[in-house]
């Protein structure tokens, strides 16, 4: 089940960032993590439900430099309040990646619904998933730094 999600997530992430922020993220090998520790400085989190019963969470965690670069590219350099703009942009990027992933999954017969994203910032923040046993981590590299997309689903 888990591997089914990886490809749609990678496609969605690359499509959203290349289309909206002119950044082409390169994907690294996915792995499983078993704790809540965030792998970066700012995280967008979105709750999902599959088949109206299984609960899931998708999160996108950026390093500070990567988040700032994305905000600047999204807004054409017109950053007003850096912290507020980073928070807002990471929420919107998470929303778009989740939306595109859901669209990709629909094409292979998996229907997910999603909630509205929330954003957590700060050194050593944590990311709450629906399970701590099996969180899929998909790492990405960009010329501005790294970020990860995480996904978990309670079977």
């Amino acid at each position, binding site marked *: 089940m888990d591997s089914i999600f990886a490809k749609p997530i990678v496609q969605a992430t690359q499509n959203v960032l290349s289309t*909206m922020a002119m950044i082409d993220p390169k994907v690294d090998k996915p792995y499983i993590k078993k704790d809540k520790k965030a792998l970066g400085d700012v995280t967008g989190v979105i709750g999902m439900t599959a088949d109206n019963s299984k609960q899931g969470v998708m999160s996108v965690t950026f390093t500070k430099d990567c988040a700032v670069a994305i905000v600047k590219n999204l807004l054409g350099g017109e950053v007003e309040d850096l912290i507020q703009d980073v928070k807002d942009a990471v929420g919107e990027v998470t929303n778009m990646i989740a*939306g595109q992933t859901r669209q990709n999954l629909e094409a292979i017969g998996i229907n997910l619904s999603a909630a509205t994203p929330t954003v957590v910032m700060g050194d050593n923040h944590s990311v709450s998933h629906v399970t701590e046993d099996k969180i899929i981590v998909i790492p990405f590299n960009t010329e501005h730094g790294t970020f990860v997309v995480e996904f978990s689903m309670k079977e």
Partner: protein
Amino acid sequence: MTIDRNMRVLVVDDFSTMRRIVKNILKQLEFNNVVDADDGTTAWEILNKDKIDFVISDWNMPKMSGLELLKKVRNSEEFADMPFLMVTAEGQQEHIIEAVQAGVSNYIVKPFTPETIEQKIEKIFEK
């Protein structure tokens, strides 16, 4: 048909980033008469006190969603024919069908390019 670039456009999205992205694209397309709102409730207030010619709205927003706003617009006597473009992350078939049934003029799934926005606007106003 020539599009009136001076028409008053209302951009509705709860994320300031997306409002600014859409407004920047509209500016590039020489639409400079643009106002914005952060959800459907505020948008409805603006529609009732300002002279709006075209609405570009997100779907998922607190208080009043874009779909609720669309239905309210279509059910009103005054704004029933308002051109209404939905720009949303909701790309699943059932959502698109729901929006079409509610009377959306056109529909864009995020992410999008400036060219997509331009083409969808042209399609709306050439009808």
